């Protein structure tokens, strides 16, 4: 048997968070291996594909026609009775502005990682961890032609919602049922949707979540739903909610599907702990998804950049201990934690609201012509008109 390979950093999962970590670690001089279990990076897509453009420069990502499907002017938020308010894209948060081809986006980020020097292997599921005295020292890989072990200074768990690596390592990554959303989306073509706006429908059409229409071109859009697991009572309910809503939309009468997308999304607070000796968790696996929007790409990329930079330093000093990785734990929390907790608390309140409440809120926001979609600004606007409705939210103000 040949000697084990050794890398400074082994990234498990080649989504955006993994590729960003790999890119910045490799750029800083670390020897990096990124392992992807699937046969192709970026597929199958599991994403609504809406992002904002504001955060791309800080992550070193340039807009590219290969993955930019469509640009929108903003978002329309629609209540159960049809009240709506609009926000322009620069104020609409992290998930509005561009609708992307996620499969191409992921490949572009992996290309950046490769150009920075990271090695990539596909069809290479990690099936276990190597340990030495409680410390994580590498991974077991089951590849096409052989099973093998790779030693790593640090293993990066970038394995998404399914997040096996963190669990194997012994970190608490379990998400409560009330903090999980079941999602289904059809890419529909031959439809009559508004190509200038991403649309969000609130209320009992999508209990504890929302329905979305993200245009990918003039005649095609991602039409999807997220429903809080807590509110799903019987088998297949998510699909029934989406299908019955689409059936009530005349503009989708002639709509035909090009793609089905489904998956689970965490809408929780982030993990309490994302590091241990020789291991780091990033992105969806670290529960960095925004609990209001369900968006995770920007947060994962921003945390991945921090992770990669810290890991490059660790590789220099050959120290991947939990103490050395604290810089990552602090770094991503400085950028993301406050917003993640605030939106998680706000989500907890929003999931208790009735259709009448949503009508009041959206109509109040329509009147004041709000152009900044922050939880704080929204609550202030509602408070002026329906102080009793904001009573339960007051601790967020």
């Amino acid at each position, binding site marked *: 048997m040949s000697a084990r390979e050794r890398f400074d950093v082994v990234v498990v999962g080649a989504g955006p968070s993994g590729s960003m970590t790999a890119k910045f670690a490799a750029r800083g001089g670390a020897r990096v291996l990124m392992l992807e279990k699937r046969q192709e990076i970026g597929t*199958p897509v*599991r994403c609504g594909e809406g992002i904002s453009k504001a955060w791309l420069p800080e992550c070193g990502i340039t807009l590219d026609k290969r993955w930019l499907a469509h640009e929108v002017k903003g978002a329309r938020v629609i209540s159960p009775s049809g009240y709506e308010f609009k926000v322009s894209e620069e104020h609409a948060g992290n998930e509005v502005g561009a609708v992307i081809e996620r499969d191409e986006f992921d490949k572009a980020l992996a290309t950046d990682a490769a150009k920075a020097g990271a090695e990539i292997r596909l069809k290479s599921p990690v099936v276990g961890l190597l340990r030495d005295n409680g410390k994580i020292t590498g991974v077991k890989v089951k590849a096409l032609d052989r099973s093998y072990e790779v030693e790593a200074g640090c293993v990066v768990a970038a394995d998404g919602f399914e*997040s096996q690596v963190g669990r194997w390592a012994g970190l608490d990554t379990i998400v409560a049922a009330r903090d*999980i959303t079941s999602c289904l989306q059809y890419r529909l073509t031959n439809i009559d949707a508004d190509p200038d706006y991403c649309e969000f429908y609130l209320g009992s059409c999508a209990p504890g979540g929302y329905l979305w229409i993200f245009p990918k071109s003039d005649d095609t859009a991602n039409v999807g739903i997220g429903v809080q697991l807590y509110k799903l009572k019987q*088998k297949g309910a*998510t*699909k029934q909610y989406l299908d019955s809503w689409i059936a009530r939309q005349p503009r989708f009468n002639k709509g035909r599907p090009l793609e089905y997308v*489904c*998956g*689970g999304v965490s809408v929780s607070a982030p993990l309490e702990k994302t590091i241990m000796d020789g291991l780091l968790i990033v992105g969806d696996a670290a529960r960095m998804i925004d609990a209001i929007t369900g968006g995770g790409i920007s947060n994962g990329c921003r945390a991945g950049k921090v992770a990669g930079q810290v890991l490059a330093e660790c590789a220099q000093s050959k120290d991947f201990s939990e103490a050395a990785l604290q810089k990552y734990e602090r770094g991503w929390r400085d950028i993301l934690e406050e917003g993640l907790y605030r939106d998680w608390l706000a989500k907890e309140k929003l999931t208790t609201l009735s259709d009448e409440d949503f009508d009041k809120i959206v109509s109040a926001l329509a009147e004041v012509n709000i152009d900044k979609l922050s939880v704080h600004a929204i609550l202030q606007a509602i408070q002026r008109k329906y102080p009793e409705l904001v009573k339960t939210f007051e601790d967020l103000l």
Partner: protein
Amino acid sequence: MGKRHPVLDVDKCMHCGACVGTCPPNAIYLNEVILDFNDKCTMCKLCIRVCPVGALGE
């Protein structure tokens, strides 16, 4: 004697992993297109509810 866990309809499964990330005891294994249960399943049925397309049942 068969193990007790939800039953998968392989024709409906889209291999999205929603059940895998939801499962509290980590009893579901998914590798691309193969989904399987191990003996840690407690029949909490969260996977049946979370499956967006109704591929899991009792």
